[in-house]
């Protein structure tokens, strides 16, 4: 306001306007200007006489002040104006969007009123009176989409709209964009959004760019507190959507809080408690990530509930629970274990997976130089020649385990097959340590060396030998599904395992390699379990062959050895590609059902078809046919779900080799995301305003919004020349200059 008093016009006028002199082309101005110059010269000469006895720099100062005053007067005579555009009254629309999502029912900052009521009050008492003469107001409410509201003359906003903040989702950006779209061709001066900024739609940069492309300023008015002391919320749960039966499943939980104390996490499947874990919250770390593991159980779908019990003082209980679906499928995974010598690791790996519902371990062991021993084969012919006879047979396995077996045990062609097993088939390969393993076995010069996560090196001497060290998970290992030992025990479960008795020194890790476990000897850690993606598959190296000690040197009820191996092998199998797979995802258009079909050589299959049966939460069914797209071997269809809930999707895939039905589940719309991060998202509101040329306003102070709308924005506008000669600031400046000169003269004794 002070600015406007001094400069006659608001800041927006100066920010958007162009400075001009209106009189410079008029003869009268030239005559007047010449007169002023004569007067100034005369005064200056006289002043010069009076100031002759002053030192040169004092004279220069006095002269400078006088010239400044003279120039100021000349400028005033030139008729300074500000050329700007202003909104043409009554010719434009202003769209006002009111957020009616669930989060607007939360208390507004520092008062008992809800955010929605505060917004309606602001609209009724301030915005409507201020804007009614400026433009035609179009009112909208929005949650996951915008709806236009009409109001009869004399209605109050609340009565007219009957608004309640109950919706479970907010799509602020998309709603604003849809309102902007609806005004295409109509003059729209600006959009005003009244919201807490809790957008839980997709805030992609594409959406922001689309908003900016309209060229209409969006002014945002923020409601809600900026922080909620004592609030604890479960923000996210990250976990795999599928798991084998009776395996350990790991989930990463993200907790945000503004307090300290102990929180407790429960994982439930329906009413059955699967896991419980305590988490210490510290005020120093407002975001906590913690990992919790639990058993997947038998086959079927698990409707998991992750529940957070916060310390006392939590503000909102509604954001302490997240639901996830876990599909437990019983497809058996086939493992091929190639071992070059009878040794204890072989025995105990076999025992660890014996009787497992999922793992089918087929092993081929060289017992003597001329004899082999096969176990787990499905028929007499399997591995009869020691190695799968063709690529198709090899690709029938999901995972290959290479034990202590020299590279010379295989032909050149078989080496190429092993590499393509990972790269092209998308299988997983695990290499174990041993006296004839890795570099010791000459694998550094095979095609498989390119796939392994380390650069094998045998130039620096023997790599395999006796050792005594304990195992420690890395940060990656603590959360990796490959290395889970038990519920909530984390690193402790590893620290209490018996030391390993051997180690194979690995070469340099490749850039894509991830170390999950380390062997610690005398304070020095060496990579023990390393993995990396390669082609479509995964490779891993376990640089030991004495994990059997974890079985033999622990009490009989200690299950960690078996857990380790089952978990590692199952997860390696999970990452292996399957000939037929179905993937469900959600986007703004609904559920996308995508089926990928490959032949036995894992090339995109031809002559395929797929049909989906979608079972709704109310048990009704929809039948759909999947359609081929641009990608060979992939069929897809999109389905718009109705009521929120769990949808079962059975996809029957038919290819030249047969038919298979794959079942997947997806949950839609069940999670009320309005309660996540219940504080005002000022940064998003500011970002929307910034990219569109609007401005963020606090709900406490919107007094300047009318002016801002007048001088900025789009719509039908008129050019205005605003005279500046009577600007109080200019007169004050001239007066200040003359007073300054007078003061200096007094001080220097020349008045």
């Amino acid at each position, binding site marked *: 306001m002070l600015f406007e008093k001094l400069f006659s016009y608001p800041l927006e006028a100066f920010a958007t306007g162009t400075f001009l002199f209106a009189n410079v082309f008029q003869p009268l101005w030239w005559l007047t200007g010449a007169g002023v110059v004569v007067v100034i010269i005369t005064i200056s000469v006289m002043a010069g006489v009076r100031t002759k006895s002053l030192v040169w720099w004092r004279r220069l100062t006095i002269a400078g002040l006088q010239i400044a005053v003279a120039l100021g007067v000349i400028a005033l005579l030139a008729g300074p104006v500000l050329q700007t555009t202003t909104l043409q009254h009554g010719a434009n629309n202003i769209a006002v969007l009111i957020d009616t999502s669930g989060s607007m029912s939360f208390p507004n900052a520092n008062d008992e009123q809800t955010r929605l009521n505060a917004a309606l009050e602001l609209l009724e008492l301030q915005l409507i009176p201020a804007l009614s003469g400026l433009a035609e107001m179009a009112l909208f409410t929005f949650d996951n989409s915008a709806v236009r509201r009409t109001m009869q003359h004399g209605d109050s906003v609340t009565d007219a709209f009957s608004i309640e903040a109950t919706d479970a989702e907010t799509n602020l950006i998309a709603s604003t964009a849809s309102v902007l779209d609806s005004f295409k061709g109509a003059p729209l001066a600006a959009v005003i959004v009244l919201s807490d900024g809790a957008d839980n739609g997709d805030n992609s940069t594409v959406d922001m760019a689309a908003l900016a492309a309209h060229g209409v300023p969006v002014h945002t008015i923020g409601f809600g507190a900026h922080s909620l002391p004592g609030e604890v919320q479960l923000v996210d749960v990250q976990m795999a959507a599928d798991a084998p039966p009776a395996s350990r499943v790991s989930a990463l939980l993200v907790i945000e809080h503004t307090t300290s104390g102990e929180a407790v996490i429960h994982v439930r499947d329906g009413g059955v408690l699967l896991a419980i874990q305590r988490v210490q919250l510290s005020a120093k770390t407002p975001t906590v990530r913690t990992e919790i593991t639990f058993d997947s159980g038998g086959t079927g779908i698990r409707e998991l509930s992750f529940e957070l019990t916060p310390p006392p003082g939590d503000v909102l209980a509604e954001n302490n629970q997240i639901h996830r679906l876990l599909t437990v499928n019983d497809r058996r995974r086939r493992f091929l274990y190639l071992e*070059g*010598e*009878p*040794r*204890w690791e*072989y*025995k*105990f790996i*076999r*025992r660890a997976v*014996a*009787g497992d519902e999922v793992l089918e371990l087929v092993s081929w*062991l*060289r*017992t*003597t*130089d001329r*004899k082999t*021993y096969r*176990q787990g084969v499905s028929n007499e012919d399997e591995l009869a020649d020691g190695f799968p006879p063709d690529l198709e047979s090899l690709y029938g396995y999901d995972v290959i385990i290479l034990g202590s077996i020299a590279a010379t045990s295989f032909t050149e062609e078989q080496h190429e097959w092993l590499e393509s097993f990972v790269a092209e088939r998308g299988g997983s390969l695990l290499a174990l340590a041993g*006296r004839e393993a890795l570099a010791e076995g000459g694998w550094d010069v095979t095609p498989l060396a390119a796939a392994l996560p380390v650069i094998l090196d045998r130039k620096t001497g023997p790599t*395999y*030998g*006796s050792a005594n060290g304990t195992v420690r998970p890395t940060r990656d290992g603590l959360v990796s599904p490959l290395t889970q030992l038990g519920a909530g025990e984390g690193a402790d479960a590893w620290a209490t395992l*018996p030391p390993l*008795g*051997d180690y194979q020194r690995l070469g340099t890790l490749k850039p894509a390699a991830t170390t999950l476990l380390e062997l610690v000897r005398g304070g020095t850690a060496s990579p023990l379990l390393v993995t990396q993606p390669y082609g479509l598959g995964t490779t891993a190296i376990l640089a030991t*062959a*004495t994990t*059997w*000690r974890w*079985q*033999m*040197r*622990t*009490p*009989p009820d200690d299950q960690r050895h078996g857990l380790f191996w089952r978990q590692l092998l199952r997860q390696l199998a999970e990452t292996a590609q399957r000939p037929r797979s179905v993937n469900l995802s959600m986007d703004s258009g609904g559920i996308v059902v995508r089926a990928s079909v490959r032949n036995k050589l894992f090339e995109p299959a031809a002559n395929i078809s797929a049909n989906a049966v979608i079972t709704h939460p109310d048990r009704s069914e929809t039948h759909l046919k999947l359609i081929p797209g641009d990608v060979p071997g992939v069929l897809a269809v999109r389905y718009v779900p109705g009521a929120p809930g769990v949808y079962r999707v059975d996809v029957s895939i038919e290819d030249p080799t047969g038919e298979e039905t794959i079942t997947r589940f997806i949950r839609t719309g069940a999670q009320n995301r309005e309660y996540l991060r219940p504080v005002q998202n000022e940064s998003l509101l500011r970002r929307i305003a910034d990219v569109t040329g609007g401005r963020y306003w606090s709900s406490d102070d919107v007094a300047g919004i009318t002016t801002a709308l007048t001088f900025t924005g789009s719509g039908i506008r008129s050019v205005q020349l605003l005279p500046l000669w009577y600007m109080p600031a200019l007169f004050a400046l001239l007066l200040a200059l003359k007073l300054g000169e007078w003061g200096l003269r007094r001080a220097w004794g020349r008045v």
Partner: protein
Amino acid sequence: MRLFPIATLTLLMQMVYGLPVNAASGSSFSGEENVFIDLTEVNLTRVVYDSIGGWGEAYYQFEGRVWARWETDYPQAEHNFAKRLRQLTRLNPAALPARRRLTDPDLGDFPLIFMSDVGYANFSTEDADALRDYLKNGGFLWADDFWGDAEWASLERFMKVVLPGNRWREVPIDHPIFHTVFEMDEMPQIPARSFAGRGLQTSEPPWVHRYPAGSLEKATMRGYFDDDGRLMVIGTHNTDVADGWEREAYGQWYFERFSTKSYRLGVNVYTYVLTH
């Protein structure tokens, strides 16, 4: 090897040599000293145990030295067997054998333990508890060189304490343990070299064994099976497999007739245990 069980001489020998009645062996007797255990190798491991009785029972004299029952054939049998394993198979056995008591805390480092001449063995409750845990973890016990009914009963009593819910069952010749590497069509009876003759008789005389010996004619392998059908204990009864290893150089006819069978069975058993 054993001499006649002259129980009456026990007291005299104790007076002369000052030897204990319950010979605990370990450092009291000669044999392989403990060696560094390299877990990258398959360690052949002899069980050290106490025996009841005195001279001729818990211990005896042979070839100029005194033997505790546990160290019968030790360590030469293991030396020879390790060499043959390396020669015949792709196993990587340690050159020197280990020896452990059942109650040693690192018993788990030896997933196959071998005990010999167990007819006079005197196991404690602690031994039983330790062996129970060891077997439940996946360990394997091979008891060899015990002959006749009384010696069998001794081991049977102990195993009833170790695994009360289980029982001995004869291992048939078509069981994989007889076929992992070498095809065997019978359970071989290997007599100690000193009792081996060139005739058809292969059993040892009953009077050198614990009374009442009963019949010693038929060699059998009996076993304890776990819940998954895997063998976890075997007793090679009425046979002395380890003597076939130990005495392979004591005459070509003995080697060809008995040691070869001992090695074939030994290789098969070790391979079975390393794969099941």
